């Protein structure tokens, strides 16, 4: 069997099967692919998803029992209601911020987790904790674990793609999509509508004919060398990698070519919006759908970027001027994301695709002393899931009356990822990798599946 395989077939098998750590599912998988949408900066649960009538009622009053609380940036003032009204949406009547009118249409498909908590109140560690379950960098991202656990669904594109916002990388940058200590093939490949895959294209100075001749020569030279060095399978593997690279050179530009999409699709997403940031994000949303269609296992899509010299300018970190900041970020996020969900649904892709919405932590119900913004709040935030294997129109857990703390069915990032793995057919306690003295897991030594949101 060995000698009969061509390089390409070999590569295909290698990529699809043998990278997988636990190819046998522990549970019947509900989802095959994952789309993770990440709004970095600590997107406020109180202004987007978590309706708190008491906050409106007690606006301007001190938060009972926490009048002098000091959080990440310092002292807190009194309770501050959301600048946006909430309105019921969908058949479920879920109350959603009027800042997100397009997203509101999808609430019947979403399972909200309102009782999330984080171990850190700082963006960088918070972001990587949401992605890796550890606040320290150097651990594999969930996408990398899933690549390691399940392998690839295609033979000409990366398994795990991370799409950054035009405004830049999220807090802690590449640590969010790194392979950590897993082998490097499990890291995400960075790609965006405005940023093609690195080193993909044949250099301009080399003609197509020269490329073919060079590769033919190289294949032949490597073949002679491999034959002279039996018992070293890596030599053949590297030859296969060159064939795979050639396929990727054809497939990646094709999948990134958004001009193949009809005008009504572009209009749905808003790719030609006059707001350049919204248009750029919309193109990334469209790119996400195309990547999923081509069998990319895990797509991680960012809407906004890191902390900047001004809080809340480049991401959802509205410390001082919540209204002005979210009036900017909300519209960038709303229509394109909703369009992506609509599109996935219309194409039947939600049957296999699990959609996640994440942020690193929530925000305080109070305003920050002397400002009209909210400080970080790791004790309460909202995430949601929808799509394959997820019950729609439900909520798991709850925060207290003011949204200060998660109090009912408190959930963690470990629970979140235990649930994601379960939906992919993996027991989060069994997907392990030995590193520096321990068999590491995505969920560290924690995590319970959030059964209530499973369909």
């Amino acid at each position, binding site marked *: 069997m060995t000698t009969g395989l061509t390089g390409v077939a070999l590569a295909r098998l290698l990529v699809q099967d043998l990278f*997988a750590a636990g190819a046998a599912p522990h549970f019947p998988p509900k989802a095959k692919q994952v789309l993770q949408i990440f709004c970095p900066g600590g997107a406020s649960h109180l202004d987007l998803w978590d309706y708190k009538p008491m906050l409106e009622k007690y606006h301007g009053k001190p938060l009972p029992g926490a009048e002098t609380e000091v959080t990440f940036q310092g002292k807190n003032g009194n309770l501050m209601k959301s600048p946006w009204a909430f309105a019921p949406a969908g058949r479920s009547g879920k109350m959603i911020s009027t800042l997100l009118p397009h997203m509101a249409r999808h609430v019947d498909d979403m399972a909200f987790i309102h009782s999330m908590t984080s171990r850190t109140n700082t963006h960088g560690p918070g972001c990587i904790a949401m992605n890796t379950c550890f606040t320290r960098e150097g651990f594999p991202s969930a996408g990398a674990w899933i690549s390691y656990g399940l392998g690839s669904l295609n033979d000409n594109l990366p398994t795990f793609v991370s799409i950054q916002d035009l405004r830049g990388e999220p807090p802690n940058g590449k640590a969010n999509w790194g392979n950590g200590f897993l082998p490097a093939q499990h890291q995400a490949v960075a790609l965006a509508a405005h940023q093609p895959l*690195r080193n993909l294209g044949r250099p301009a100075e080399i003609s197509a004919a020269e490329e073919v001749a060079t590769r033919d020569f190289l294949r032949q030279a490597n073949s002679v*060398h491999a034959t002279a060095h039996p018992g070293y*399978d890596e030599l053949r593997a590297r030859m296969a990698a060159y064939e795979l690279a050639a396929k990727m050179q054809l497939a990646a530009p094709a999948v990134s070519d958004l001009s193949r999409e009809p005008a009504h699709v572009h209009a749905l997403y808003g790719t030609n919006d006059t707001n350049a940031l919204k248009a750029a994000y919309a193109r990334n949303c469209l790119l996400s759908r195309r990547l999923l269609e081509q069998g990319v296992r895990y797509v991680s899509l960012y809407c906004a970027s890191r902390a900047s010299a001004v809080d809340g300018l480049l991401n959802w970190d509205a410390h001082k*001027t919540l209204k002005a900041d979210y009036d900017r970020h909300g519209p960038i996020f709303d229509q394109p994301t909703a369009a992506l969900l609509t599109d996935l649904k219309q194409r039947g892709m939600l049957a296999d695709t699990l959609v996640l919405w994440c942020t690193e932590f929530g925000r305080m119900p109070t305003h920050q002393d002397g400002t009209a913004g909210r400080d970080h709040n790791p004790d309460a935030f909202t995430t949601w899931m929808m799509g394959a294997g997820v019950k729609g129109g439900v909520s798991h857990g709850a925060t207290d009356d003011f949204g200060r703390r998660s109090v009912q069915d408190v959930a963690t990032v470990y629970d979140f990822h235990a649930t994601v793995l379960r939906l992919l057919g993996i027991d989060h306690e069994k997907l392990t990798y030995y590193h520096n003295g321990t068999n590491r897991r995505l969920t560290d030594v924690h995590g319970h599946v959030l059964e209530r949101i499973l369909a």
Partner: protein
Amino acid sequence: MLGLLGAARAWAADSAGIAFFEQKIRPVLAEQCYECHSAQAKKLKAGLLLDTKAGWERGGDSGTPVVVPGRPEESLLLRAMQHAEPDLAMPPKQPRLPEATLADFVTWIRMGAPDPRDGGGAVARRADKSWWSLQPLRPAEPPAGPSSDPIDRYIDAALAPQGLTRNPPAPARELVRRMTYDVTGLPPTPAEVAAFARDYALDPARATEALVDRLLASPQYGEQWGRHWLDVVRFGESIGFERNVIIDDLWPFRDYVIASLNADKPFNRFIVEHLAGDVVGKNDPAVEVGTAFLVAGPYDDVSNQDVAAKKNIRAATLDDLITATGGAFLGLTLNCARCHHHKFDPIPTEDYYRLRAAFEGVTHGRRVLATPEERVRFAAATAPLKKAKAALETEKAALDTVIDARAKAELAARLATRHKVDPLLTEERFEPVRTRRLRFVMHASTANPRSAGASRLTEFEVWSAGADSRNVALARHGTQAAGEKSTTAEDFAAAYGPQLVIDGDFGEQWFIGSPAVLTLTFSREETVDRITFRNAKGGDINDEKSRGATPCEYEVQVSADGREWRTVASSEGREPWTLAHGVERLRRTILTPEERRQLTDLASRLGAVERDLKAVPPLREVFAGKFAQPAEPTFVHKGGDPLKPGEPVVPASPAVLAHAVVGYALPADAPEGERRLALARWITRDDNPLPLRVLANRVWQYHFGTGLVDTPSDFGFLGGVPSHPALLDYLADRLRAHGWRLKPLHREILLSATYRQSGLFRPEAARVDHEARLLWRFPPRRLSAEELRDTMLAVSGQLDRRMGGPGFRLYKFTQNNVCTYFPLDEPGPATYRRAVYHQNARASVVDVLSDFDFPDIAFSAPRRVNTTTPLQALTLLNHRFTLDLARALAGRWHGDAAAQVRQAYTDVFQREPTAAELAAAMPLFATYGPVALGRALLNANELLYVE
């Protein structure tokens, strides 16, 4: 199938052996088999034990092994699991286990069935103090054997029971390439290969000895083995975490490591310098720099007002030091004892906090490293200048006092006629003027009476005269705004710019730079009579803290040609923002000519002194850590939670080795430096077996690709067990005998026949030991990322061999609060130094190095992973680096086509092409030229692998 599995193994070389067993095999055995086949079984079935290695080796009642290493098809255990035996389907009364699980068993058996579960009886679930690595060194007489070399006799003794023998000696070219890469990280030159081949033919022993001595004496030895050590000590030149700020003064540590290895500094001294160089080498920068080890790991420097968060961050920062120390020197995963007693090793949680007590006074940061002479010289050079500066400042202050007093008196006399500037909205009216150009020249801000730099504006409006007045400054009317900004976000060019003040949106602000001038150009001439400006971000509450400073002293000017400007309105007459603003405004008008002259003169003299002061070379600061006496004693953190202090602990030796090594305990308030020194002295005691074993194993690993223990920083229960325990102790003992110097140990290893044997593949031997862990052949290996890059530079004649100093960068670095690293598209010759001199920022991705598994140094990387990916192919084929080097390489060849192809092979592979190769290369060369051939050869497997 064999090939596929083999390839998979090679692709994931780090998950071999014991780790594979622990992950894939042991859980299945425990779950599916132990119920009937273990010491705990209620009723043992068929007399077969599967909870020890000895159990399956002995077999059940049949008395034959149920696993035959290397031969899955002959292993009864697997056949039963596959339901391939007529009456033996295991586990009983169940469907077959999943195919993937069965495939794991095939893989495992093919690997030689590695199984660490020794001991005859019940399986130990954790290590106790009798664990092998915690015992004193037990050097024994090497086994008997024909070889005169003890190392060879140990190897042969392990090969013989498997029916294996070592390969014959490697041919000359293979040996010289292997040794040169191994010791220096570079390929030999074609001339060196040829010369060695000549000498080797005459007298192999002498030629080899001469080669080893030459290589170990070459400065490139320190670069190669220093790089290995930098991996172990998680050396990275940015702080990591959210801000990931670059560190430009950590490179002296890299140079220190290289120099120490080249000098063959005893490793016990080296370790002491790492932990307490400032104590043992006070005022000797060459020694003090060692403490950079302590702070070379990532840490979180984001300021945090939350008390609990602060303590957690501090705990995480010290955890990095403890983890690094335990792993690098002791091979202990001390960090696993942070929240509870170690689950697998006999490390009580107190041990973790004993080490924390040693490091309690360490903080990340830089300090001056200078000799006493340098300090004296610096003081002598700067003292007179500082004195002169102080005198001038006194003189100026006296003059300012006189002027300010007069200005204040004048200010009191002049009543302000208009309101203060209002940051939320300020208006200036003027006579209607027709213009295409208008500018706003700002002299002061609400935060600084002397400059408007770093203040901000949200919106600036210019209103047309007459009825239906409209804002003609809006960008949508075609107006252009120009002005400097005080901060940038390079990957997001639109941030903070002056265009934001004419976008009609009161959200984002222009961060005003220097000079503080906003210049507007309208699309056509307009008649205007009013401007308004505001610095307000919206929302209910709007204060200086969130909106920043606002310009408050200014002039509005117009111009017909963009050169001559006429002031049409200004802040004159407004109530000044503060008294100081008023004084500053008046100073512009009330100075006497004499005062003006004096001020100018003072400013120029002060400027000169400050320039001279700056010109004195500063004492060198290095990111080597800062030390202070801890304010509080150290406590155990219950459950690892710093908010739950438990029992106090003192700085003391960890109890895990108390039975083997004489310990120490210092008082709770022991001086800070003594704590680290005591720990260092304890680690480096000659009777401490762990550092010697760990170090000897690292040396072996870098020579052969895999250590005798394949988990080089974990000698605990979950780590690998030694493939050759007696050899490991022998090597550790030799290391001690050599006074902890590495070079004599290298020499012994390099001269062993085991090392010098060929890499020849023998299928019958591979069936027993595919990975050659027993060393029946020299295992081939891929070059590391650095070796590959250095090789490409070396063979194309472009390698810049300058040693030391600040590193080069393969990325563009930007900072806007947090730092971002963008890979370089055009790495020019400035980057053509050896990769060890690359300034390795954390969480950065650079071409070639990252592709070929240069680790992200968030953790120690005691062993590189080795992957094969399509992205590697894309980089090596298409990146400018390859193209530039292919061109340089081709430029070295001369003569006719055949001669050039010959030179190509000689340059790149240090050998002549065969006739067939020559024939195969000619068409590519003839049609597409030498550069095409160069590009192909730089991509060839032969370049990337050594045997």
